[in-house]
């Protein structure tokens, strides 16, 4: 057998670089096995896994009881970076693992993350209220900042909601990609806009249609048959047939026309 001499020339010359190429990564859960062998309590560190989502890989760190942090793979350049960011946020070491918190995998697969335990104790109280409100936005739907502020009961100071979104420790599991500015453009503050686009595309949110609606000045959609108005992405609004759709530029116009607010998406009544 002859040595193949593409790239790596004759072995005499580059024993040293060949040696450098012998560095191997350990099995995925090696660190975890070491910690178990030594007998460190599981309460002292977080485990994290990489899950596949419609928008790409997602790193999720968990304590034994709850999710403590999550980031899309596109937000970091390496697992080391995720581990370091996780430590600076939570002061807990994240160790790579291959077993996820029970219920995490199905929650990510189906997008039903509302009942997943997410530990938001690293965020201060006001921001936590905002993030809890964000968690109630259903998959595939969008809500404006003012809606979040009302649901969270944090008053009208405009910066609070965006600051809370920027502090979001669990991307996707606290779905801050479903929050938009008042005129409907997405409010991606904690990650590059490409990540936000991918997250929304994975939930089949048709941003072009919504942009078209907002150009026409339609913030809400009403149904002429039921006389109810909704956010355009609300499950009920999506069922209105084209000829019964009645766009409104704000809530008071809808009320004047004799429409009431939808009770599931609860648009802001002015």
């Amino acid at each position, binding site marked *: 057998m002859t040595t193949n001499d593409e790239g790596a020339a004759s072995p005499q010359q580059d024993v*040293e670089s060949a040696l450098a190429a*012998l560095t191997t990564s350990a099995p995925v859960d*090696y660190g975890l096995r070491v910690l178990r062998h*030594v007998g460190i309590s599981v309460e002292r560190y977080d485990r994290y896994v990489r899950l596949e989502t419609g928008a790409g890989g997602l790193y999720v760190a968990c304590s034994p009881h709850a999710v403590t942090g999550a980031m899309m793979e596109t937000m970091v350049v390496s697992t080391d970076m995720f581990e370091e960011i996780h430590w600076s946020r939570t002061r807990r070491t994240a160790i790579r693992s291959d077993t996820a918190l029970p219920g995490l995998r199905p929650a990510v697969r189906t997008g039903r993350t509302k009942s997943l335990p997410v530990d938001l104790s690293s965020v201060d109280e006001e921001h936590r209220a905002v993030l809890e409100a964000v968690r109630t936005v259903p998959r595939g739907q969008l809500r404006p900042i003012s809606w979040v502020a009302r649901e969270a009961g944090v008053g009208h100071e405009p910066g609070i909601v965006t600051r809370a979104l920027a502090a979001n420790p669990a991307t996707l599991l606290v779905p801050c990609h479903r929050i938009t500015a008042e005129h409907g453009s997405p409010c991606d503050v904690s990650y590059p806009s490409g990540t936000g686009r991918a997250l929304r595309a994975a939930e089949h949110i048709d941003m072009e249609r919504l942009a078209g609606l907002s150009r026409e000045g339609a913030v809400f959609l009403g149904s002429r048959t039921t006389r109810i108005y909704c956010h355009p992405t609300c499950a009920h609004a999506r069922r209105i047939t084209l000829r019964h759709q009645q766009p409104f530029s704000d809530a008071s116009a809808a009320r004047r026309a004799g429409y009431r607010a939808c009770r599931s998406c609860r648009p802001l009544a002015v």
Partner: protein
Amino acid sequence: MDDMAEQVTARLAADLDDGFTELVRVHATAVRAFLLRVTGSATEADDLGQDTFLRAYTALQGYSPQRRRELRPRAWLMTIAANVWRNHVRSSVRRPVSAAPVEEVCQVWPDQRPGPDERAGTALDRNRLVSALAELPENPRVAVVLRHIVGLNYQEIAEVQGCPVGTVKAQVSRGVGSLRQLMATEDPPPREVSK
């Protein structure tokens, strides 16, 4: 890197268990890589790596916070790993379990990088290098692995080996020299499956 190392020792000094998780996070891969290349066996590397950290933990329990803060974790862990390995070699000479290297098993170990297509081109060279490495005597082997695979500097290797820096340099250069010879003269090493 220095920054990170400082962080590890500061955390070790403040809270042993918390600092230890960080120590494992940062250094487990390097310790295992070192052991994998000196033993040539993935399963042994796993076991000895776990023992290394267990010993490290036990030792740290007896250290004062001051001493933990001044630790240089990488070289210190490699020292323990090298000792663990030497002890293992001694005791397995006395109690041989299986004479065959487990490198065959290691070849199909699922978590090893690089991936199959990249390996295909270099697998032959890699295999030869791995088995050539296994033929080096203990001290040069440890020195070569620490220098070129783990990437310690000569000063740190001297600490690990407990000998002067000049000796380490000689060990490394002679080790690499004999690797070259082995790679040049040797036919693809006999890798018949035992059983």
